[in-house]
């Protein structure tokens, strides 16, 4: 292999892509579950089957891919070695084993000791993954905005996993039942806004300018935007837990949205100044994720005024809000995978041949045409599910889930096919 910073410090290719493959194979399961029973998206906010669907998405798709990406990004971009590759493998196994038990128990509505064991396995896996990365970050010599946000994201991941475990144990051995729902809202937002929001801000700050050849957003303004997001989030937590009066919740929601909006505006400005004017399918997904985030922010503002909505619309808009937040992350991840994964495969297969013989480019090893064909399916399926949630209509939910099942299976086939690609030089 070529001697050099990235090659020396990057973890084994197999560790990173196994995380990606696990996530890609589990995303279609989300839509298969909703095809079997769409009631999680028409019923109450925290039904057991909704918990099953949400955790398959979060622990089955999002967590493996984001953690796998961090295993690659932290060493290569921040210049530190992953503390333990073995711990990386163990964490993935624990999360997936725990998820299998959690999803089955949630889906069947069985809050038995088996759920406690499964949740403990999953939380242990997340603790192990986060600790492994945090231990690596100790050796970072030069902190960038992206690096700080990744560190913050890991603290949020630890918090979300810890609270999630406490909540799961509370379902099996109730010990704070009166507060369960407010803690559940805190848990969901620690994961979706705290953990994933930090990862998204930290990663896009570097990756979007890199892929588009645009200027990096200014670090100080980006940090201000992130502070607004986190400050708003903690005001919301304080309100939900009854520590602060309700008005603080409204201030928190506005601060959070202002922070997300400011950061999005910085990215849009960088995007507008990009040298690469072509918008490929990966970047189209990023733009679609931005639109979903905008819609989620709009619904979050609506939720600040529940008295005007009535209980039915509070439930439907909250479900739509959650779907859009998840949709933002899922679509963004797929878009980033279209950009990152071909590069990783290229690096693994061809980096040591550069300068010795002609090598393919990333475009030669990834079918942009197939990705372009799948993109409208992601958008159409997502919109049909969204309208299904707002209309409370199971037929629409099933139709949207079917479309997303097909296109997500296609995405998995495309990307796993890229990983498994062989050429004459592979022997």
């Amino acid at each position, binding site marked *: 292999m*070529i001697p*050099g*910073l*990235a*090659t020396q410090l990057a973890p084994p290719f197999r560790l990173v892509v196994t995380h990606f493959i696990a996530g890609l194979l589990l995303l279609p399961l989300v839509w298969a579950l909703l095809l079997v029973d769409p009631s999680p998206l028409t019923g109450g906010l925290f039904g057991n089957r909704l918990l099953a669907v949400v955790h398959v998405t979060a622990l089955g798709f999002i967590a493996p891919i984001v953690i796998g990406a961090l295993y690659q990004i932290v060493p290569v971009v921040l210049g530190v070695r992953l503390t333990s590759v073995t711990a990386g493998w163990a964490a993935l196994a624990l999360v997936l084993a725990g998820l299998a038990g959690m999803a089955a128990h949630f889906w069947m509505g069985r809050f038995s000791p088996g759920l406690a064991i499964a949740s403990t396995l999953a939380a242990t896996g997340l603790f192990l993954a986060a600790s492994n990365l945090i231990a690596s970050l100790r050796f970072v010599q030069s902190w960038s905005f992206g690096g700080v946000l990744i560190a913050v994201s890991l603290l949020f991941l630890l918090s979300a996993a810890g609270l999630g475990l406490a909540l799961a144990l509370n379902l099996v051995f109730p010990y704070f039942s009166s507060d369960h729902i407010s803690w559940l809202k805190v848990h969901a937002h620690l994961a979706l806004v705290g953990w994933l929001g930090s990862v998204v801000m930290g990663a896009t700050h570097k990756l979007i300018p890199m892929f588009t*050849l645009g200027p990096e957003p200014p670090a100080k303004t980006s940090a201000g935007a992130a502070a607004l997001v986190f400050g708003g989030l903690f005001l919301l937590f304080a309100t939900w837990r009854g520590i602060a009066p309700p008005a603080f919740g409204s201030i928190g929601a506005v601060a959070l949205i202002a922070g997300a909006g400011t950061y999005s505006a910085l990215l849009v400005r960088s995007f507008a100044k990009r040298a*690469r004017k072509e918008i490929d399918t990966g970047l189209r997904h990023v733009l679609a994720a931005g639109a979903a985030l905008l819609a989620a922010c709009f619904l979050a503002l609506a939720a600040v005024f529940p008295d005007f909505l009535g209980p039915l619309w509070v439930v439907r808009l909250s479900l739509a809000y959650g779907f859009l937040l998840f949709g933002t992350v899922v679509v963004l991840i797929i878009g980033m995978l279209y950009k990152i994964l071909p590069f990783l495969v290229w690096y693994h297969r061809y980096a040591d041949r550069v300068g010795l013989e*002609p090598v393919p480019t990333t475009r030669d090893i990834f079918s942009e045409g197939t990705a372009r064909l799948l993109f409208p399916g992601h958008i159409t399926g997502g919109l049909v599910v969204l309208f299904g949630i707002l209309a409370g209509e199971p037929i629409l939910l099933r139709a949207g889930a079917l479309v997303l099942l097909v296109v997500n299976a296609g995405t998995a086939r495309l990307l796993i096919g890229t990983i498994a690609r062989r050429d004459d030089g592979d022997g």
Partner: protein
Amino acid sequence: MATVDEVRNALRQVIDPEIGHNLVDLGLIYGIDVEDDRVGVTMTFSTPGCPMHDVLVTGVERVVRALPGVSKVDVRVVWDPPWHPGMMADSVRKALGR
């Protein structure tokens, strides 16, 4: 002894795999010095912390060392002046849609 033009032409063999254009036309090669059998290449990247850093530097060393009469190659990566899209060749700018 290789000429500066020969070195520049050799560097056109090193392609940024993500952008699909060679380092010379991308404007990443800032300078080439030839002195007897020693060649110095001063270059940059489009972004600090570029994950292609080591691969492309090694690629530059290899294609230059393969030239007849070259026995030592010194690649220096600099960040000043910072790269900007205006440094790209017209053909690349057009291909990227500018």
